[in-house]
């Protein structure tokens, strides 16, 4: 298992649509992935879970990945959040 952390930079935080982008990113990988905010841990492949974190701009997210592709998954998701989800479109 590997763990990383990243801050949310999007102005309005991770709302439903961005949560969807994060889930789309997480489901590319086989690893089991969770996102934790202020001690609340959710499955990164669940849009309701991720959106329910209420991760506002500036919030710190801890991402844990566990499985055969855990390193790539972690790097990808940290980048995704760090680049304000711009990765999806370029």
């Amino acid at each position: 298992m590997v763990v990383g952390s990243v801050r949310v930079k999007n102005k309005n935080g991770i709302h439903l649509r961005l949560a969807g982008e994060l889930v789309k990113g997480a489901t590319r990988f086989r690893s089991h992935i969770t996102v934790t905010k202020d001690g609340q841990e959710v499955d990164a492949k669940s849009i309701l879970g991720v959106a329910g974190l209420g991760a506002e701009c500036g919030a710190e997210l801890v991402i844990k990945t566990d499985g055969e592709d855990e390193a790539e998954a972690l790097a990808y998701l940290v980048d995704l959040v760090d680049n304000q989800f711009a990765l999806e479109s370029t």
Partner: protein
Amino acid sequence: MNDAKAEKKEITFYGIPASPGIAFGEAFVVNVEDMSVPEEHVSVDQVDDEIRKFHEALEQTEREIKKLVRSLEEEIGEEHGKILDSHRMILSDELFRNETIKTIKENKVTAAFALNTVLDKVLATFAAIKDEYLKERTEDIRDVRRRVLRNLMGQQAEGLSNLRRKAVVVARSLTPSDTAGLNKKYVAAFITDAGGSTSHAAILARSQGIPSVVGLNDMVKHVKPYDQLIVDGITGQVVLNPTAETVHLYREVQARYRELEKELLTLRDFPAVTLDGHSIELSANIETADEVADVMSHGAHGIGLFRTEYFFITRSALPSEEEQYRYYASVVKRIPADPVIIRTLDVGGDKIARWVGDLREANPFMGWRGIRFTLARKDIFRTQLRAIFRASAHGNVKIMFPMVSVLDEVRSAKQLCEEVKDDLKRERYQIGENAEIGIMIETPSAVAIADLLAREVDFFSVGTNDLIQYALAVDRGNAKISYLYDVLHPSILRLLRDTVTAAHKHKIWVGICGEMPGSVHGALLLLGLGLDEFSAASYLIPTIKKIVRSVTYDEARALVRKTLTMGTAREVREHVERFIHEKRPELREFLPEAAS
């Protein structure tokens, strides 16, 4: 509620006009409450049956949403189908599926009750969120819940698809799902508490030619089913329980509007030329690519302002070059012979920009917006310019920069254009070699140095809305001083005169893309001031064309010469009205009620 017997009082609500026209009708208040789901238990051998029903309902809902996406794409454009992406993701959410199945098994309850309980828990999590913005984003989850429950509980269509008589649709807000099963021939008008002119209801209304008013704040709570309503999509007023007198008044307004509309549309294929042969370019402002059909049906010649903000702010991530290129090209290809003026991103000020981080500023209108923003974020600027230049291969594209206040900004932006063009050519892309480059004139500073700016660019387009607020130092949203916000102030007329003089001296053309040409006073003065192009919302095009075709250029110029000597907006207004009454009485129908 025991005020049913109370006498119904006429109330007028003021909102944002979203789609023109006058409508009368009974209220059909869209049920915005969640459905109530009774707690029903099942026997052990029915558990599997409930799980199967749950899966079927999910599949059925998935099919409905797919169908909805298709019809949205066909009706109002590809963009709008994307909105439902997150709905489909909620449907396939493992947490939601597994928890519901677990609840059915463990508590021996119906699928409907189980899923309702699970989503209640999810919604409770959202309610605990501290951030106000994120907390309120639960409408999509409720929407999905309503859809699945509807399928599970075997109820046929509910809500808007129950509409079987012509009525005014009244709602807090309308989502694409809400309007999906709707038979539009029953809709007299849409009115909503929420939303601006780019909300779903507004766009749908305009595309269907149905009157609409949005942004009515708390109108819904005053309206009961079957209440009588009058909707004025031209001024943005909604009258609840109108008196016989008001109905009579609006019948007349409606008759006049219809007459006018018919007459105006006959002008569609005629040019905007004065009685003595002076012609102006008349084009339309658009906010989304879907509006091109409107532009053509109203007889505008091309697009004088293609705002690009909407495309950006409706996405969760920055649109790529390819996405932007396809979007801009889709407009250009539909009217390849007509000019399309694409304005580069104008965020900041009153616009949101969730994808670039926190932009909150103490004074956004004097802040980081327009060209100031794009020059600082060259990554975003370069991508947009590449997309625009690539789209320029398909027609007559012009590029316009907003919010210019100093010369350096224009030079830097032009430099970047050259670099982008060179890159594209090297990469073997086709581009329109001669795409004109122009700027918005919307700061007093730009007017003061208009002669210097005119040497650098191919055209000017005056944004009157911002120019007025910067020149008169007035925030139009501030009720105490909004009386100062008047397009007919001598200071504004002088700024316009100076801009036109500088432009013509340097042989470039100058247009206008604010709300000013939409009033008869504004249109006559702009004509007389010598502006070469007017660009306005599509529905205003026939009116402006009629005004231009009703006068001579000479008399409009004389009107301007006279009004430029006047000291107050009121004198200017009265003089224009005197001219209309005495010389061109056929234009009286365009005067506001009080002056006609």
